[in-house]
């Protein structure tokens, strides 16, 4: 609430007035947007506010060889979102490069040189689109200048075409490769002197290609890593192959905070191939990104290490874990549900909610539960570290190279200068690989093997039992409706352990950035609103999972809005459009959100018209209102997150045995300007499928502090039969708003949309996830 004050509000409103004026004249639009985002980058928002900030030096990102090969240096983690392809395409388009001659090379961890490298928050494209275009434009102008000099003509007479510079007056031309050396000696033009290509000259940016809802109308520019992936040549973390590698696994404490009391390693050391057994120190809570500690087994291959671990006899000191050793999710859920009955810390308030609830003609109340989940990227955590003469070198699939470097340096007590981190491809991340604990573990083992590479492999059991778990959550909502079914009041209490408990004594309340994920930014136009956050302590490591707290907030709010529509006897779509109210822009500060995903609320307010448009698009495409056979129904949900807008409609059928078949899913998405629509579609498809797992299957429970699931036979994620039979992605053409995120915002509304469809099909309301066998 501290940031919600009048002075700040006034200042922002008046500034926004100016900006709007600038954007209004359409001829000025491009220039105005350009200036705005640039200003934005220098302010306390966006890329400029990130550690390491942004860099737009062409010499950092674009290398042109004399043979014409253009190498784009990619500074963001590739984890399936396609950023190596999409950012390289942005560069190639602005530069004028022939896509066949473009390669990508992964930057090492070095934020001083490459700018921010922390790949999370769905930020890569929205923070790097402008700097990379500028870098490429500068490189193109350097090539043009080099050609003009060589020909002795004024630079305005020459122009870059695809992979060459031409002088139309004389018909001369020189290839990028032929100009590479001369161009590299040119000064980098000033930012003010840069001229970007007009939209009409672009070949890739914003262009649809590849598979679009079942059809291929035109080939897509080939994916940078596509060929390597289908031939088995792509190098993920575990595929790094260094001479003399030893393989390690670690037996970790079963409870967060427990320690090794004693270990008998005699049987382990008898396993063929086992070389050594080592104690790994854990750290005290809060554990941050530090190793959990335990016992490492080092062997000549991964399997021997795993067999050796199986043969260890370890006694754990559970007392060190304190309260965590009593953590049982069933009891915890009940405790939170009870706590949700009493008021909590007030986060946002307008009107007199209690009075309005009392006076309501109809009152709707519901409590929703979302369990812990593990990110479970298909590639479990793994890292290779080699330490030689006080210098460490690491190869790992990590989302956060900077934190990885810091973690290794701190663990070894050496300077960061002496730590080199190579980033491999990630076999999925979803937030798990933002935490480099597994790389630090490898460094702790490698300390004992001077000059020898240690490959530390997590098993799937390790991954699921020692995840940084998605926070468990209880959301309780009450709404009052008048006699016409219109909402007069909305009270929402959210209870969930905070990620900040990883880094500081447990605050037991959600932080501003956690509340800002769809809780206080709830967009409904209701006269009386009170949002509260009662306490919820953490007993395991809580961490980011794709879209983070948007998941429980969207699931509760979108389920509840449907319950209100049902209580009012109104069509769900009509009802939520009314709840949203008239088209308008809700400034984040007016709802107490001073975070806004790090973006300037003047450029990225909560835009009700954009929300409405995705709802209309998804429902229209899905044939909302059509008759379905019995046992089958349509369900809708929508959400605003990572400054983008998503709506989802499911057509689902539930059999008498409680089996869910998904006939169709329609997802409409608005992220403003689209850099690479082909990969945006693939992210939306993936979000729908993963979200189906959140709704139907995925749950980690704890008993006495121990995770009860361990592999894909007990921690269930979607398989091909769970996917929608028909999956349609509808991208909203909206090049004029500021660019939003893509990797995460498709995900939050999926689970509630499916649960709403299940209600439409069966009349059974799901209030506890996953659905599991609740329908049978």
């Amino acid at each position, binding site marked *: 609430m501290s940031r919600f004050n009048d002075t700040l509000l006034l200042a922002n409103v008046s500034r926004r007035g100016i900006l709007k004026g600038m954007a209004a004249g359409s001829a000025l639009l491009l220039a105005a947007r350009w200036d705005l985002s640039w200003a934005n980058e220098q302010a306390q928002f966006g890329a400029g506010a990130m550690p390491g900030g942004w860099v737009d030096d062409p010499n950092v990102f674009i290398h042109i060889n004399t043979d014409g090969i253009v190498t784009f240096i990619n500074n963001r983690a590739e984890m399936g979102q396609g950023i190596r392809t999409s950012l390289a395409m942005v560069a190639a388009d602005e530069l004028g490069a022939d896509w066949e001659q473009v390669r990508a090379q992964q930057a090492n961890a070095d934020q001083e040189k490459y700018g921010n490298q922390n790949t999370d928050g769905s930020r890569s494209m929205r923070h790097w689109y402008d700097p990379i275009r500028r870098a490429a434009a500068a490189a193109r102008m350097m090539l043009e200048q080099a050609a003009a000099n060589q020909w002795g003509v004024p630079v305005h007479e020459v122009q870059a075409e695809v992979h060459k510079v031409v002088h139309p007056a004389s018909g001369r031309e020189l290839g990028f490769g032929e100009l590479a050396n001369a161009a590299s000696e040119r000064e980098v033009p000033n930012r003010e002197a840069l001229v970007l290509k007009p939209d009409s000259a672009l070949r890739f940016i914003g262009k649809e290609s590849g598979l679009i809802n079942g059809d291929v109308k035109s080939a897509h520019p080939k994916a940078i890593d596509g060929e390597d*992936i289908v031939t*088995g040549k792509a190098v993920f973390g575990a595929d790094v192959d260094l001479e003399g590698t030893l393989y390690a696994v670690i037996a970790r404490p079963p409870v967060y905070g427990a320690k090794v009391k004693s270990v008998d390693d005699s049987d382990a050391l008898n396993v063929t191939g086992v070389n050594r057994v080592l104690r790994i120190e854990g750290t005290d809570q809060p554990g941050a990104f530090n190793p959990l500690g335990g016992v490492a087994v080092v062997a000549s291959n*991964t399997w021997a290490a795993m067999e050796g671990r199986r043969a260890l006899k370890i006694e754990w000191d559970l007392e060190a874990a304190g309260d965590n050793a009593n953590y049982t999710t069933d009891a915890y859920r009940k405790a939170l549900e009870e706590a949700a009955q009493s008021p909590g810390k007030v986060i946002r308030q307008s009107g007199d909610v209690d009075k309005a609830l009392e006076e309501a003609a109809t009152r709707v109340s519901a409590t929703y539960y979302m369990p812990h989940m593990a990110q479970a990227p*298909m590639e479990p955590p793994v890292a290779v570290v080699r330490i030689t003469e006080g210098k460490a070198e690491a190869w790992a699939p990590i989302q956060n190279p900077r934190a990885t470097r810091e973690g290794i340096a701190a663990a070894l007590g050496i300077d960061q200068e002496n730590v080199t981190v190579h980033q491999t491809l990630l076999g999925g991340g979803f937030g798990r690989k933002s935490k480099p604990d597994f790389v630090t573990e490898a460094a702790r083992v490698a300390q004992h093997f001077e000059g020898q590479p240690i490959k530390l*492999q997590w098993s799937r059991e390790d991954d699921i039992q020692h995840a940084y778990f998605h926070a468990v959550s209880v959301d309780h909502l009450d709404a009052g409706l008048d006699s016409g079914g219109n909402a007069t009041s909305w009270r929402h209490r959210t209870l969930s352990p905070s990620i900040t408990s990883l880094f500081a004594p447990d605050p037991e309340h959600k932080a501003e950035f956690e509340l800002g994920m769809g809780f206080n930014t709830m967009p409904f136009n209701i006269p009386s609103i009170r949002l509260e956050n009662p306490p919820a302590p953490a007993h395991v490591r809580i961490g980011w999972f794709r879209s983070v707290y948007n998941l429980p907030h969207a699931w509760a709010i979108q389920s509840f809005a449907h319950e209100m529509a049902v209580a009012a006897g109104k069509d769900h779509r009509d009802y939520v459009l009314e709840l949203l109210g008239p088209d308008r822009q809700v400034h984040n500060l007016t709802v107490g959100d001073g975070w806004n995903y790090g973006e300037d609320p003047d450029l990225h307010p909560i835009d009700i018209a954009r929300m409405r448009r995705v709802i209309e698009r998804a429902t229209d495409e899905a044939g909302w209102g059509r008759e379905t056979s019995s046992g089958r129904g349509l369900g809708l949900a929508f959400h605003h997150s990572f400054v983008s807008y998503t709506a989802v409609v499911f057509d689902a059928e539930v059999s008498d045995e409680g089996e869910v078949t998904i006939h169709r899913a329609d997802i409409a998405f608005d992220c403003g300007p689209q850099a690479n629509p082909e990969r945006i579609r693939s992210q939306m498809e*993936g979000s729908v499928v993963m979200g189906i797992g959140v709704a139907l299957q995925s749950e980690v429970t704890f008993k006495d502090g121990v995770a009860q699931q361990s592999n894909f036979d007990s921690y269930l994620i979607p398989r*091909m039969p769970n996917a929608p039979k028909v999956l349609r992605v509808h991208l909203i053409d909206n090049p004029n708003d500021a660019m939003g995120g893509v990797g995460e915002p498709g995900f939050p509304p999926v689970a509630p949309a499916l649960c709403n469809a299940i209600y439409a099909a069966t009349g059974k309301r799901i209030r506890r996830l996953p659905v599991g066998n609740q329908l049978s």
Partner: protein
Amino acid sequence: MINLTINGQQHELDIPDNMPLLWAIRDVVGMKGTKFGCGIAQCGACTVHLNGVATRSCVTPVSAATGEITTIEGMADDPVGKKVQQAWLDLGVAQCGYCQGGQIMNATALLKRTPEPETQAIVDEMAGNLCRCGTYNRILAAIERVSTEEASS
């Protein structure tokens, strides 16, 4: 000594009989295309062909791996495997790509056995291959693309 024939090449390895084929391929032979995802035959990331049959190498002891082993690295030399790889590229199937070697191995084994499978048969056959990125709709479309080409050729 264990003898393995991988993509037509002989390997004589000094390893225990019960070592899973996956780790022999990855850590001992040093071929990295075959992936570890679960170790208990739940995900299919480790799928290879053993005498043409899609096999989970993580639960196959090397002693049982007698005959021809083909891995993802050998698929480009297989006429059906090559078409499958091309369909994967044309449709932009992969996201992170970690599961896709196993998906391609499983799909190729299916298409070699049944060149024009029914949709439901594909879904059933591919149910053992997990993709956390959620690329199932594109995987299905790519398999059907190869099967349609088969039908029209």
